[in-house]
């Protein structure tokens, strides 16, 4: 069922050639439609917002239309990888998240260096190099970064004032204390919790572990979950939960449940990507419009003194499936989306740009209040966990053991040791 690469390539290039001639012959006919798989948000930032439709010019120039297939996070990758295994696919271009871009999947996508040599994207070095290298294998680039999400601390300023706190927490030792003071019952009976995490993922706990001087998996692929930093983080999470400072049903709350809870004023502080502040402050969906503020994530005292930030980040790249029929069109589209001007326009529509220079643009600075904080965080950002072939399993093990520690089924010590013991065999040998 898996196409041998040579035959697959041949078929694909024949199909591409055929598509090319057909396009030439019927230039003024109905626009040719190209399928893009992405999250809804990727389509939104290119089509609606302050800067309007970013791809209008490209569509007219190429007499093309785009067919966006927008799915949720897991479904996008399920679909892309399933499509990419076929002998040929309608999918022209796909958005892939860094955690899912594991080395073994690269063989299903086009290497992009030849395209870049033939028809270069302007000022490629402007892209965040960390993101580019995460989508490279053996020195070959496979993806063009298009969107990132760097986490920061979001807090409900109204609650801080109500509880007599004049600034957000800055160092990790303040977390439990702040959470305790921000856990209370409002006059209308709503229970407010001081702190929230996404308990079905690792990013929020890793941020705490890093502020405690630890980590889950280091950049050189060592699992250090049994070291004091992660164990301390598990202790903090456990205390927050056992003392009732986080929602009781936290293990069943998905990201969107969390967002709703923050908007409803049920959670006072939470780490989220910067861009979420727009949702939290939106009068249509929030009970505290304009009262949510952003600040840097908590660090240790020493990190703070050294001016270091903790900023976990994830990001999206655009990739071309190896079995795509219209690869040149895909590259043309990627190039268009990645131009400096279009990067800024998409950013004004709510995208978090992957070009460093975008954060110097006055239009962006004027329209995005947190641009400066975000730019600084981006510079120091790191992915919460490096991608490797079996990272999905490692994630599940982490979540299982972390929840067990949080709910009191295991000690933080034992949970950390279990994580290390179970994750180490999954790591690539280096």
């Amino acid at each position, binding site marked *: 069922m898996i196409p041998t690469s040579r035959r697959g390539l041949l078929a694909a290039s024949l199909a591409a050639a055929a598509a090319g001639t057909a396009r030439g012959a019927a230039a003024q006919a109905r626009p040719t439609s190209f399928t893009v798989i992405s999250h809804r948000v990727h389509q939104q930032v290119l089509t609606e917002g302050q800067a309007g439709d970013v791809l209008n010019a490209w569509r007219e120039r190429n007499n093309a239309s785009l067919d966006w297939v927008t799915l949720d996070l897991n479904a996008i990758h399920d679909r892309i990888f399933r499509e990419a*295994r*076929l002998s040929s696919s309608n999918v022209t271009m796909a958005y892939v998240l860094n955690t899912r871009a594991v080395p073994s999947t690269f063989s299903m996508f086009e290497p992009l260096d030849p395209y870049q040599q033939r028809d270069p994207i302007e000022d490629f070095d402007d892209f965040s190099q960390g993101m580019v290298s995460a989508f490279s294998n053996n020195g070959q680039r496979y993806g063009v970064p298009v969107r990132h999400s760097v986490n920061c601390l979001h807090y409900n300023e109204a609650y801080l004032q109500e509880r007599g706190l004049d600034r957000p927490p800055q160092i990790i030792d303040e977390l439990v204390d702040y959470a305790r003071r921000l856990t209370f019952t409002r006059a209308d009976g709503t229970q407010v919790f001081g702190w929230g995490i996404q308990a079905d993922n690792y990013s929020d706990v890793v941020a705490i572990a890093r502020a405690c001087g630890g980590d889950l998996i280091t950049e050189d692929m060592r699992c250090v979950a049994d070291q004091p930093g992660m164990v301390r983080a598990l202790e903090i999470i456990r205390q927050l939960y056992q003392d009732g400072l986080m929602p009781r049903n936290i293990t069943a709350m998905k990201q*969107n449940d969390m*967002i709703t809870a923050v908007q409803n004023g049920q959670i006072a502080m939470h780490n989220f990507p910067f861009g979420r502040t727009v*949702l939290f402050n939106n009068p249509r*969906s929030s009970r505290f419009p304009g009262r949510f503020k952003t600040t840097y994530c908590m660090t240790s005292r020493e990190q703070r003194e050294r001016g270091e930030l903790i900023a976990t980040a994830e990001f999206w790249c655009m990739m071309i499936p190896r079995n795509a029929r219209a690869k040149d069109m895909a590259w043309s589209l990627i190039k268009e989306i990645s131009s400096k001007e279009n990067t800024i326009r998409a950013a004004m529509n709510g995208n978090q740009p992957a070009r460093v220079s975008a954060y110097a643009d006055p239009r962006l600075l004027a329209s995005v209040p947190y641009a400066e904080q975000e730019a600084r965080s981006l510079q120091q950002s790191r992915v919460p966990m490096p991608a490797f072939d079996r990272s999905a399993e490692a994630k599940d093990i982490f979540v299982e053991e972390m929840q067990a520690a949080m709910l009191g089924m295991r000690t933080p010590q034992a949970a950390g040791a279990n994580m290390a013991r179970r994750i180490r065999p999954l790591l690539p040998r280096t």
Partner: protein
Amino acid sequence: MRERWPQRLLRALVVLLVVAWSGGPVALIVLSSFKPTPEIFSFPPSVVFEPTLEHYRTLVEKWPDFFATLANSAIIAVLATLLTVAASVLAGYVYSRYRGTAIAASALFMVAIRLLPPIVIILPLFPATSLLGVNDTYAVLVMLYATFFVSIGSMVLKTYIDGIPTELDEAARIDGAGELQILLRLIMPLAAPGMVAAAVFVFVYSWNEYLFAFVFTTTEAKTAPIVISEMMGSLTGVDWGLLFAAATTQLVPVTLFVIALQRFLVAGLTAGSVKG
């Protein structure tokens, strides 16, 4: 039948309980879809409120493809129902009227093959359907839904046709009727309630099915449950009102369909048991 009042009271209580159990959650969804957003979260749930169509307006404006997918769901469900009922009545008739090792084996196969979890079928099926170019078409879902309900459809119809006296087809046969004529002219009209019952099962399943629709459709043949789950997974926070409006729109037609046919449903499943 005469009985004492405690028994009557007990029965009334049982009826009330089961109505609350089955109907309560549905009523909550339907009512909530007409509530202004703040009221959705009020406790105790408000029963008296000023109904609003705002969520339905949002649904029409922000999710226009929802209605297209509802149409897809309807077309797919109707086609799958026709295919399943046709295949089931043929099989059910043979199972009811004929005996033999091959027949028994075929019936056993029908049930046994269903032991395989559908999820695992997706692994080989996706590349195959893609090769045939039927992904994202009505055809692939129609076939799959028919496949997964033809077993139960055949069993229901076998049981029902068992209840039709064999003397009738023997008489017809003596009058010179062929197999097909017996089936079309005699069995099918008499087995109509059984066919309706089987139809209800497969229609409801096809209308609500999620997994296959999720895997095998992209845009053209996408069905309504997929869109509802997309609404649930929205990163912008769950818009409960919108979700309830979509859920109501999706459940009302099929609920009405089931209610309209419930009489046949009971009859279709009843008569077959006559022989016991």
